């Protein structure tokens, strides 16, 4: 059985930052990621980032990953294993891992779970038709594999992700027939919205999608305005012709391994769904298990990287690799940056979510707040 001081699950910005930090303090780190290449969601991100300047707001997502990989690549005590899906964690702390048709076991002294998120979906007639894709899927197909999702695409959701992907579709030579958003206002940053507006793409605020039309795959979409009670207004039904519908309706944390590990889980809608309890060092309430990034609550890449750094630092500290004094100084430094990042108006939802999480009951896997599934 493979053993390691620290195993990180997930090679997105959070997992890679955790590995970079922990290996800097001379801990032995192995990162497993089920993807063929490391980078997580960031490999698809061709736009310059929002977030704090210290965390490379002006750098494209794909370049941030290169910087992290360079940092880890220099060290002999850290390695990344791609194509390795961590499928289970048992009570004795052993992990089950599937790689290239084989299954093997590994036991770390400390485990950092940075598995990222899964895309949410919407239920409407035809939402299961081929041609209805998640925004992340569209990005993967287009920005990683160079294939257009369709020729005429309807975007559902005008948060940052919807707006960014709409713009990326245009860059890839695809017609965006419109952006549908149920709220009165666009959720994303105005920089992204004005890019879309300048290209004369209609943004249908206060609208929703009622149906995806098509026999074997998407041939059109029916949308309508929503009233004050969020119910669609029949008289405003209209049909748009399109061959793909892209849903950008949010992410929810990928927490299977946390449930399996026995972490206390709570439903916090502000953080995207079920999230694990955690202390300021990113330790869960299961001994030796740390969490970081979108898997610990949906935020954005800068926060994921800082949480990853904290988790890596804490795990290395608990292994005796970092003195208490060094730990205190470094934890304070990263903690301050993270608090800064969350301090503005855009951090309001996350702050509310985190404070709810702090008050949520521990030592139980319970459903808080009646569990609105909001898919």
């Amino acid at each position, binding site marked *: 059985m493979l053993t390691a001081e620290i195993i990180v699950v997930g090679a997105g910005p959070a997992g890679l930052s955790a590995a970079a930090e922990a290996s800097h303090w001379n801990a032995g780190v192995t990162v497993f990621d089920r993807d063929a290449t490391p980078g997580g969601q960031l490999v698809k991100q061709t736009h310059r980032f929002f977030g704090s300047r210290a965390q490379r707001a002006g750098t494209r997502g794909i370049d941030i990953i290169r910087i992290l990989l360079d940092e880890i690549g220099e060290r002999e005590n850290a390695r990344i294993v791609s194509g390795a899906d961590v499928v289970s964690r048992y009570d004795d702390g052993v992990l089950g891992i599937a790689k290239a048709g084989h299954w093997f076991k590994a036991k770390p002294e400390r485990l950092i779970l940075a598995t990222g998120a899964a895309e949410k979906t919407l239920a409407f007639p035809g939402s*299961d038709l081929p041609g209805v894709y*998640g925004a992340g899927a569209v990005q993967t*197909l287009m920005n990683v594999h160079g*294939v257009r999702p*369709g020729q005429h695409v309807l975007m559902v959701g005008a948060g940052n992700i919807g707006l960014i992907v709409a713009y990326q579709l245009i860059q890839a030579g695809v017609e965006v027939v419109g952006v549908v958003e149920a709220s009165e206002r666009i959720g994303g940053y105005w920089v992204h919205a004005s890019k879309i507006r300048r290209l004369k793409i209609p943004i249908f605020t206060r609208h929703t999608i009622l149906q995806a039309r098509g026999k074997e795959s998407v041939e059109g979409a029916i949308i309508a305005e929503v009233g004050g009670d969020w119910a669609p207004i029949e008289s405003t039904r209209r049909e748009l012709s399109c061959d793909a519908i892209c849903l950008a309706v949010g992410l929810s944390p990928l927490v299977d391994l946390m449930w399996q590990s026995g972490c206390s889980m709570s439903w916090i809608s502000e953080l995207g769904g079920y999230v694990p309890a955690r202390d300021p060092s990113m330790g869960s309430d299961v001994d030796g298990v740390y969490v970081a990034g979108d898997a610990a609550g949906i935020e954005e890449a800068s926060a994921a990287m800082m949480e990853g750094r904290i988790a890596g630092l804490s795990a290395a500290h608990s292994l005796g690799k970092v003195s208490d004094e060094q730990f205190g100084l470094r934890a304070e430094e990263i903690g301050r940056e993270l608090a800064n990042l969350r301090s503005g108006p855009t951090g309001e939802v996350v702050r509310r979510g985190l404070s709810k999480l702090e008050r949520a009951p521990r030592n139980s896997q319970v459903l808080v707040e009646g569990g609105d599934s909001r898919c």
Partner: protein
Amino acid sequence: MSAGIALFSGNHLHLSEVDFMEKELRISEHPVLDFSPGDKVQFWFEGEPVTGYLGEPVAAALHAAGIRVLRYSRRLHRPRGFYCAIGNCSECLVEIDGEPNVRSCITPLAEGMRIRRQAGEGRAIADS
């Protein structure tokens, strides 16, 4: 003001038939990205020869070839294609070389693969 409405007049907007394959789906020019695909390979889909690039996800190769229906659902036999493209949702299951329940979005394409649409739960390997 409702920004969407202001931009529209009629109820039906340029409602023409869209042709999914009217233009090549592979991106040849891009302002930010550079794509360097692997070698061209031939594989089989439902017995027909298809070409794609070595190592790209099977789902991407099929999509670029205009194939979007990857399986039919278990009870209502509804057509299904990929949804998440990162191995989370299992919407993209196909049969590859007789093995059912393979997630085509995260399976790298190889020369000569024999791919079939999966019906329901797929046939057991022993039957094929």
